[in-house]
């Protein structure tokens, strides 16, 4: 008797959990808020300002999804996660999606059971050296001391790169980026290596950024993108196509400035389908017809988000590089809206 009660309770709990996992979109709509996991703070990608408002490149993705689903870019509950808590927060359902400069890797996708819905930033490991060293290529770094964060993939990439080029180096293990900056400035190491975006952001905080150069070699692939749980494809589609809408908007020249005008109807059928004046794409996703328009209006298209948060006019000053549209020779490419 007692056992059957327990089994019954387990079944009900399992069904409830299954139901909850199956309908993230409905959950979000019912809640009226999107729970979006972000980093606890990374320059340019996500950080709260002096008034506590979150801002940044990853934050822009969260706001776009919230605008697409709920029509309100401020209807987001930002849940700050650390590198250690991010995956459990997503897997346990505490957050609906994770936009936290997370590298898309095989094991995270397959083994941890997440679905990466796309890539919003193509990063890679780079090198920074003081310009007085006169080094112009990473292959000239034979015998250099290198500051490197322990326990990260960057450590392995570094070893691979130096072995492949048959040159030697001496690692200076450090724990955090903050420590790395101090060590590097104090001259404890000749070279500092981490993700190129992180290097650029670090360099921007130096008193004399001009005295340091980023070397041209990028020695690893770090595609960063938003992710959701496995097994809820409808919700995965919503996040994926919200991101794609931002990318397509840039490709088609739809910006937050001209979107009001364009949404009255244009001669370009793809723009019309994107903005919901033609076809029924929103209905297929389970969203309103103007979902993509809301997403774009939240913070602008992909290019606008990039320029505002991490682009060349910001202190971080990242060039588009790999993150240019495919039409400009980059890798940013969205499947068609059709």
């Amino acid at each position: 008797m007692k056992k059957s009660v327990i089994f019954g309770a387990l079944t009900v709990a399992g069904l409830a959990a299954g139901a909850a996992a199956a309908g993230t979109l409905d959950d979000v709509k019912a809640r009226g808020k999107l729970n979006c996991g972000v980093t606890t703070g990374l320059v340019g990608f996500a950080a709260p300002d002096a008034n506590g408002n979150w801002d940044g490149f990853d934050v822009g993705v969260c706001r776009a999804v919230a605008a697409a689903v709920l029509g309100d870019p401020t209807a987001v509950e930002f849940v700050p996660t650390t590198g250690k808590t991010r995956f459990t927060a997503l897997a346990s359902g505490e957050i609906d999606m994770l936009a936290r400069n997370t590298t898309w890797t095989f094991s995270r996708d397959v083994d941890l059971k997440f679905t990466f819905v796309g890539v919003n930033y193509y990063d890679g490991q780079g090198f920074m050296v003081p310009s007085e060293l006169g080094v112009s290529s990473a292959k000239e770094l034979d015998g250099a001391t290198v500051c490197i964060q322990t326990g990260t993939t960057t450590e392995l990439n570094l070893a691979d790169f130096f072995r492949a080029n048959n040159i030697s180096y001496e690692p200076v293990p450090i724990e955090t980026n903050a420590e790395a900056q101090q060590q590097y400035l104090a001259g404890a190491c000749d070279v500092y290596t981490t993700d190129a975006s992180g290097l650029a952001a670090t360099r921007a905080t130096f008193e004399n950024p001009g005295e340091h150069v980023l070397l041209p070699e990028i020695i690893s692939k770090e595609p960063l993108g938003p992710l959701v749980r496995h097994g809820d494809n409808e919700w995965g589609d919503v996040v994926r196509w919200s991101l794609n809408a931002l990318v397509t908007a840039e490709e088609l020249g739809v910006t937050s400035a001209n979107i009001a005008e364009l949404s009255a109807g244009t001669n370009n059928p793809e723009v019309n389908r994107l903005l919901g004046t033609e076809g029924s794409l929103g209905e297929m996703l389970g969203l309103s017809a103007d979902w993509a328009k809301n997403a774009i209006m939240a913070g602008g298209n992909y290019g606008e988000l990039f320029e505002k948060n991490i682009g060349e006019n910001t202190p971080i000053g990242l060039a588009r590089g790999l993150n240019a549209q495919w039409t400009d020779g980059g890798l940013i490419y969205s499947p068609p809206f059709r």
Partner: protein
Amino acid sequence: MSDLHANSVAFVRTETIPESPPPGVASGPIKWMRENLFATPANTLLTLVAIYMIYLILAPTMPWILNGVWNANSLSECREILNGKSGACFAVLSERWPQLLFGFKYPAEYYWRPTLAFVLLFAAVAPVLFFDLPRKLLVMTALYPFIAFWLIWGGTILVPILALVGCGVGYAVYQRFVASNFAAGFFGGIAAAFIVWSLGGAMIPEGASEAAMLQPVPSRDLGGFMLNMMLGVTCVSLSIPIGIALALGRQSSMPIIKWICVVFIEFIRGVPLITLLFVASVMLSYFFPPDSSVDLFLRVVIMITMFSAAYIAEVIRGGLAALPKGQYEAADSLGLDYAQAMRLIILPQALKISIPGIVNVAVGLFKDTTLVSVISMFDLVGMIRGPILASTEWNGVYWELLGFAALLFFVVCYGISQYSQWLERRLATDHR
């Protein structure tokens, strides 16, 4: 005789010479320096080296502090103002001051609420810490947890009132039965409190919090030094009674109670605090359904309290072990029962012996509250490492922020330590 002298000697002084001050080298600061700083050649050498060391430290830091910039909007602006001179950028402290104290999500218009709770804290702990104060002030101490909860979290006032009523009923039941049987009083009191809470909880109307006088603030929005203080105060005050109970339980002659206490203490002491915090923040959310999870702040309080209670239990066990067996036997021979003997004879002495150890654990616990930053709660250190250093304006300001955090923690911990020394002197009854 004196007449004779008066004739034979030309002059005799009849009164004593007034005392002249000691020579300059044997008095005042010079004497002190000669005795303490330059007594021997070796001593002199060490003094000179030490002075040089202090100079080496102060020469760069003093101008850095005195040149500090207090008004700027970003690090680059600071550097422009300094224009190449050495100087600190304290502007980050003035710009992010509320964030450092309250976290970045606590609504700015309600900052007065935690501030008021902080001020009231002094009124509440004073009668506990200084037992010369009138005992009636303890009423404030008893009410404080409920007032502070209501002030910080807001929401309907019915919740703290209900909690207070539950505690009151529990205490009344305890008082009624404790004279005949301690266990009946203790467990009856707990049961009565729970009955009141569950009955009352059903009666609080849905949505009462939204219309409340103080707007509710969720736990996730707490942060800054406020969070450290809240965790520190709550956990210390909870873990001392639990620690006493565990220490007594470990000495109990009842095997089940004894073994429960031993296993609990040894398990908790054998696990790093950070592991417990991860369990609290990460694993528990797997076990609860998504909507019914326990409040994160409460989870962390439970874990830290368990951790420090285990340590305090061992400290108090040391105090109990230090008491001569005669004290226990004396209590027995007076015909006191267990509760009376503990309350009147054993614990007052054992706790007095344990004061340095307990304070040591309390100071350590207060500093350990910064560990919550690794489970993405924004305490003071979490605020610095996360949002503030990650903002484009302030990325790269380390010394100023972490020095400020160190200063705040030092003030509190030094205060605790000074209090404990005062307490030891005050309680000293032996004649050493």
